């Protein structure tokens, strides 16, 4: 079977072949095909710019792979900020000896995800490191998007606003961890990894009352809520009973001693919106398969950045950022 060789990263013939035969073909991008040192792109006046690196282990997991993740991650960052994702750059760091077949699968998946999301891959790079100095495939993506009129601004958050989560919490983290721990549940837990710009961009365009959106990746929903509350200088009150979980994810987290509120999500967003439009926004999100479990989970109170959780019994506790043991290489 073909494997990645150090020579695939030397800038010579093999590098060229790799680019032409895998990346240009799988990404289906005319700009990339020009093979220039940079790409000239047309973009609106104000642009959003984001970057993210992906080192997830294993590179293939139920519900996705590192290629889909690398595309969706940056697309979602651009979208929740309040822009229409347009172009991506994709850089690979490959470990010598990685099966070529794995790279092709990852590139194909990244290309398919980009086409689904309507973003063009405009630039790329490939480096190869010696065996043992990396772990199969690492990817960095950067992306630009056209800024929309309305975009995420924490200072717009008002007391009385509603807090929405776009679906079940913790799926990606639970999928990776249960896969790594070798734990088999009744059915395989799938990562939620997906680009969401087809849901998020229309929301920004339709509702002025959306104050802020954010994707709860590493650190999970808990950490993201705390970050937003602190930036907005408001308290959040979350109702534990309203939090949507897949029962399998909840069980898996329990077996492994983890709180699903701190597990990573790769296909979810949190939105803080004017309470008057909360119902409409949730209904809109629920029309998409990626958002069928969307729910209002809480409200904004006067305060200074605490996230309070009302338990089903009626008691209150604080929700903090992730401070304990971090789970490495989740994305």
């Amino acid at each position, binding site marked *: 079977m073909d494997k990645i060789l150090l020579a695939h990263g030397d800038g010579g013939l093999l590098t060229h072949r790799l680019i032409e035969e895998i990346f240009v073909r799988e990404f289906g991008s005319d700009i990339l095909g020009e093979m220039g040192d940079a790409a000239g792109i047309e973009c609106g006046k104000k642009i959003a710019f984001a970057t993210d690196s992906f080192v997830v282990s294993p590179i293939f997991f139920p519900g996705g792979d590192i290629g889909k993740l690398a595309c969706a991650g940056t697309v979602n960052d651009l979208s929740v900020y309040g822009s229409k994702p347009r172009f991506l750059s994709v850089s690979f760091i490959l470990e010598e000896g990685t099966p070529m077949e794995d790279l092709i699968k990852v590139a194909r998946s990244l290309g398919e995800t980009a086409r689904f999301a309507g973003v063009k891959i405009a630039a790329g790079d490939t480096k190869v490191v010696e065996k043992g100095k990396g772990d199969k495939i690492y990817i960095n993506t950067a992306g630009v998007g056209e800024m929309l009129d309305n975009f995420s601004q924490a200072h717009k958050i008002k007391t009385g606003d509603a807090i929405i989560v776009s679906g079940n919490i913790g799926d990606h983290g639970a999928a990776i961890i249960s896969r790594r*721990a070798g734990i088999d549940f009744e059915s395989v837990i799938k990562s939620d990894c997906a680009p969401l710009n087809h849901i998020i961009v229309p929301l920004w365009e339709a509702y002025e009352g959306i104050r802020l959106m954010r994707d709860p990746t590493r650190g999970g929903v808990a950490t993201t809520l705390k970050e937003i509350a602190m930036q907005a200088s408001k308290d959040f009150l979350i109702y534990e*009973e309203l939090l949507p979980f897949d*029962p399998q994810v909840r*069980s898996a987290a*329990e077996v492994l001693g983890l709180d699903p509120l701190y597990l990573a999500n790769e296909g979810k967003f949190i939105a803080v919106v004017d309470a008057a439009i909360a119902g409409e926004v949730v209904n809109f999100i629920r029309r998409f398969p990626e958002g069928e479990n969307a729910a209002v989970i809480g409200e904004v109170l006067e305060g200074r950045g*605490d996230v309070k959780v*009302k*338990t*089903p*019994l*009626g*008691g*209150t*506790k*604080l929700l*903090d950022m992730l*401070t*304990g*043991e971090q789970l490495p290489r989740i994305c």
Partner: protein
Amino acid sequence: MKLQEILNKYRKPDMGKRILKNLVPKLERINDRLGRKLNLMEVCGTHTVNISQTGIRDLLLPYVNLKSGPGCPVCVTDNREIDWMLALADIKGVIITTFGDMMRVPGSRGSLVEQKAAGADVRVVYSGLDAVKTALNNPEREVIFLGVGFETTVPTVAASLMEAETLGLENFSVFSAHKVVPPALRILLEDPEIKIDGLILPGHVSVILGRKAWDFLAEEYGCPSAVVGFEAVDILLGVNNLADQILQGKAEVANAYPRAVKEEGNKAAQELIDRYFTVTDAQWRGIGTIPQSGLELAGEFKKFNAKDRFHVSPGESRVPKGCACGDVLKGKIWPNQCPLFAGACTPTSPVGPCMVSSEGACAAYYRFHRNLKEGDLGG
């Protein structure tokens, strides 16, 4: 019934709310009678966390002081033992295997995490058996397992010793900092400065020891006690049982967790402990030496004892200045009464182990109740 269905039954908010409604007037009557707030103590890290997590601590705050005793094994591990573990990790070529909780616990000079970053081979495992596997896969290297835990954990470590024995492994050893719970409760009940009106006994430890093992609490100390499970309804039922005992002027050891805990406990697990370990005096952090409260490797199994195999010196142990972990562990002060709480000592830069372990009282108060003022918790 599937596990999840069983657990859901004990999580039903309606059932919990009904118990609460009956419980609160009872607690009020007790407090009237006592002329102060009732003091109950749990001695299990899982109770510490779940009482906060379920909202019970917040709901019962006006009626009862739910204190956390020495129930988190990492928290009661003495500084000298941690220093010893750090010294073992310094030995060239050894692989240290440990539960994740120990990684960030600071000793007198650094922590395992820092040593790992400096090049020591420290690996997190989920059980002693994983450590045995590591030894099997690395026959040319010494593998040391850091054994920390109470009666719940010890049988699994004993099982790993059995496995190592069967496999004839010569490169596997255990550093035993294991402890047993009952003697620590005697120390607490004999301390005139600690006022405990009732004990919430650890469900997991009781699965191994059996309900009967706690009878001395009622017979010798007249302390109302209940073996309690871990779901919201379990905990409320346990507190309710203690309230009933106190109102009736009784002291017994009730089993409020009968779906898991038997009279005699788990005989097979007890035999495993007895075969591989022998009881010895042990140093508890902040409490001092407690007679017959530690476990070290017994007789012929001493060959697996890392302390004997590797002659390292832990050096002089220093307890960090200002750290009040000892008083927190005895329930003498609330975590937020420690001068270092949430200032010099936080989960990201912990000074004492009660802030490191996710089951430590300080970590739980930091995480769930940081907004409470010192006075909110009562005396």
